[in-house]
């Protein structure tokens, strides 16, 4: 009995989906739109977070040491700093390395090469470049350095850049917050539009639903096919959305790489294809089923 009903419900659901061609097409199109918006939000989110973290990684504190500071005490300061929980990584640049970098940067500039020759000794300072896990923690790190009051330290550039760093930190926070909010808001609207479309589709069938009740159909026997149609709407639109995203991202990828070289969106898409497909199919089916379920409830009260 249960399996007979399940088979009949599935069959009717598929048949309704096919017979109400226009209605199904319209619903699927709206759902594609919804999934497309949600999909775009995922990619924009990933892109934004890559851009933001690349910005964040460019913010750092440089600690410059006096020319006579011995290397082993710099290394021990570095080790001590590395024990702080806020510190992500520290890059030690010795005087020699600094000179090398400087030379490389100004390769071909005869004047600078000549000036260095003139000075004779290495005029550059050894430094530690400290990056924090969170831009708002730079203040704490520099505070720590100040309190320790190492005599090898010449200057800490945090205080010079303090305002810029703090402002950047605040902007990153706001951007992430606003982005998340906007994403949820757009997704909410998309879901609402889909829900209304399905509600309208069921509204047009309200009389039939009433008739089915009056001739002795149980609520499940009536609700079932609509749930099946909801699953079909979700699955079809997820499949089509994925088929749209594939060439679209492939086309966008090289153009986007020019703007944001750190982010290969096509690779990101391929790496997360399973998660993305689960999100599309899961989202589509859950919303299709839930909308049908809620929309049909009131017409079953006969």
């Amino acid at each position, binding site marked *: 009995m249960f399996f007979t009903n399940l088979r009949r419900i599935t069959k009717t659901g598929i048949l309704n989906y096919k017979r109400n061609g226009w209605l199904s097409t319209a619903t699927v199109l709206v759902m594609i739109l919804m999934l497309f918006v949600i999909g775009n939000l995922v990619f924009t989110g990933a892109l934004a977070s890559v851009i933001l973290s690349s910005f964040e990684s460019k913010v750092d504190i440089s600690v410059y040491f006096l020319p006579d500071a011995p290397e082993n005490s710099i290394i021990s300061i570095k080790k001590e700093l590395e024990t702080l929980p806020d510190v992500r990584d520290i890059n030690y640049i010795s005087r020699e390395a600094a000179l090398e970098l400087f030379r490389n940067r100004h390769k071909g500039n005869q004047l600078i090469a000549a000036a260095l020759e003139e000075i004779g000794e290495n005029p550059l300072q050894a430094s530690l470049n400290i990056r924090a896990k969170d831009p708002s923690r730079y203040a704490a790190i520099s505070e720590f350095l100040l309190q320790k009051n190492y005599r090898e330290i010449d200057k800490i550039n945090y205080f010079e850049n303090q305002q810029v760093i703090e402002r950047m930190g605040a902007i990153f926070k706001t951007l992430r917050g606003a982005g998340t909010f906007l994403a949820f808001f757009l997704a909410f609207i998309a879901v609402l539009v889909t829900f209304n479309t399905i509600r309208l589709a069921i509204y047009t069938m309200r009389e*039939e639903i009433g008739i089915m009740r*009056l001739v002795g159909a149980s609520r499940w026997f009536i609700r079932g096919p609509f749930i099946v149609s909801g699953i079909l709407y979700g699955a079809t639109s997820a499949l089509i959305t994925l088929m749209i995203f594939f060439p679209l991202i492939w086309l966008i990828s090289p153009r986007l790489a020019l703007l944001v070289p750190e982010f290969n969106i096509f690779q990101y898409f391929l790496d997360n294809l399973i998660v993305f497909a689960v999100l599309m199919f899961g989202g589509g089916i859950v919303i299709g089923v839930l909308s049908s379920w809620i929309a049909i409830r009131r017409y079953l009260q006969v």
Partner: protein
Amino acid sequence: MIFFDNVSKIYNHHSVALKNVNLRVNPKEFVFIVGSSGAGKTTLLKLLIREETPTDGKIFLDGIEVTDIGIGEMHKVRRRIGTVFQDYKLLPTKTAYENIAFVMEAAGRADAEIEEDVPEVLELVGLSDKRDNFPHQLSGGEKQRVAIARALVNRPDVILADEATGDLDPINTLEIVKLLQKINELGTTIVLATHNKEIVNSADRRVIVLDKGEIISDKEKGKYLLI
């Protein structure tokens, strides 16, 4: 057995559909319910299948209190009653065959049974050649016959028919009434609400007369009294 225990249905102060109706219909009876339009015939039938609930009173079908069952159980009562609705209530997206098969599927009947019974009732109402037509491709009388076939097919204990012959020509009307009488002889209770004087008078069965929501006459082997 159908039992109406002091049932009233009041829509508002100006519109009383039924007033203190007490009615008992025994199993295997054939009952006509007559009365001018607005007398409450349709309301009476609607209350029995719980399409509407009474304002007052209780209704029983074979000992089950119809007025007390929950929404999740209503279909069980409705499956015991075959209803021919005044406006047919066919499913517009299903063919004649599928409309009839639907009530069997909903009742959980086996496929083999459905494949055997549906063509049989279609033949009984003379619509074998229209089995694949959708309701909008059928005439009024044909739709009515599909509705009758649908009411019969589950072999219910009771058949309710609301103006079931209203859209039929005299020959077809006679056929349908004969059909209902035959079904009645096989043991099904029939409640037939109608305007049709001839069929009431020629049938020689119990006649209940409703007027303004009240039963004004209930006679075995009655006649259509109203002009």
